[in-house]
């Protein structure tokens, strides 16, 4: 384990250096005057400090992944350890490289937490696919034979994913937007990304669990807080449109699920009689 730790620390540090080197060269040090000032006005020392911060970041992230290899501990506690480690080092890196600004650190924390949460939900959904595939192969009963009201329990991961994306993407993309022509905020998010997210999460829930109305509600409700942002880029009725899109996606997914079940039913019935696997 110790050997693996040192290997990862070294590899991560190299990756961090490789990632930071072009950034250090491409973006001059004068932009980050606070760091330069902290380094006694030396641009070279400031550059070296940024490289060092990159190396430390890479090393900690790479070594921190060892948390998943712990023989004991649940997935949830491992996730928490991994989150605190990665988030802490990321915020520290932002603090060093972006002039010791608290507002930047706060933004970094929000962005990181949002992305981490989305990643976690995606991993959970992938794991559920795997578990379901194993269950089917072992011939076990479905995991939740009795559907919950409005299928809220079944669609919970989709609700969380929809909410995280609707709430998280605008603040994540805002710093990258052009100040004169905010293309991302005014066009890309409302007319491409949000409709896509609404339709895909609705469709995914439909394919998985049949008709469930909550992803549509989540899309509409999670969009509403975006109306509070400045500049005003959205209208309330867009939320209704996203909800309808999610509902349409859900109905389409449910129809696909129904069609697949009908198509596979003879094969399952034959397999049940013969005691063989479904092709």
């Amino acid at each position, binding site marked *: 384990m110790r050997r693996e730790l040192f290997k990862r620390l070294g590899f991560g540090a190299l990756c961090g250096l490789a990632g930071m080197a072009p950034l250090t060269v491409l973006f001059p040090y004068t932009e980050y005057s606070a760091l330069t000032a902290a380094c006694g006005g030396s641009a070279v020392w400031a550059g070296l400090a940024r490289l060092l911060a990159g190396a430390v970041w890479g090393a900690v992230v790479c070594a921190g992944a060892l948390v*998943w*290899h712990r*023989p*004991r501990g*649940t*997935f*949830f506690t491992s*996730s928490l350890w991994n989150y605190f480690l990665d988030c802490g080092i990321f915020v520290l890196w932002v603090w060093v490289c972006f002039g010791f600004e608290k507002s930047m650190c706060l933004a970094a924390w929000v962005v990181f937490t949002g992305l981490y949460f989305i990643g*976690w939900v995606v*991993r*959970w959904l992938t*794991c*559920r696919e*795997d*578990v379901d*595939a*194993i*269950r089917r*192969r*072992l011939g*076990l*009963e479905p*995991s939740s034979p009795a559907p919950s009201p409005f299928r809220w329990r079944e669609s*919970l991961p989709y609700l969380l994913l929809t909410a995280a994306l609707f709430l998280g993407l605008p603040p994540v993309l805002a710093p990258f937007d052009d100040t004169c022509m905010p293309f991302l905020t005014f066009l890309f998010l409302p007319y491409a990304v949000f409709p896509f997210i609404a339709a895909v999460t609705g469709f995914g829930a439909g394919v998985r669990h049949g008709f469930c109305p909550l992803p549509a509600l989540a899309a509409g409700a999670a969009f509403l807080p975006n109306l509070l942002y400045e500049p005003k880029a959205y209208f309330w009725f867009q939320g209704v449109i996203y909800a309808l899109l999610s509902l349409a996606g859900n109905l389409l997914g449910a129809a696909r699920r129904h069609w697949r079940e009908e198509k596979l039913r003879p094969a399952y019935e034959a397999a049940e009689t013969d005691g063989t696997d479904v092709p």
Partner: protein
Amino acid sequence: MEVNVRLEPERTGIEVVIYAPARTEEVDALAARLSGDAEPLWGFCGGEAVPLETDGILRFYGEEKAVRAQTESGVYTVRPRLYELERRLPPEQFVRISYSEIVNLRRVTGLDLSLTGTIRMTLTGGTVCYVSRRYVKKIKEALGL
């Protein structure tokens, strides 16, 4: 099962041929036993040594620096380490589910994923164990998924 012994004095060794309508687990087990590959696994419990039937074992797990084999009738200590058992047991039947546990897939009665991401496996008789995410891929491979 019909057993015939034919003596041929000119032979230098023993040869066994199995005639069966199809290749089944029983045939494979018999072949393994005859070829001497399947050395019985001994379980120890309170000074008593018991040969353990592979199919009757629910799981192997590490406990207090020893390896235990759990069957429906009780828990026995076995000599081989978990990694040795992993090599020795049929890979499509016994699979490692965590750092310290190998289960008999034919004895799995339930598999659930909780909202916190924990995968809970239930075995015959209600024994509960937890699957590590790292080993999900191995289970899928063992099942040919």
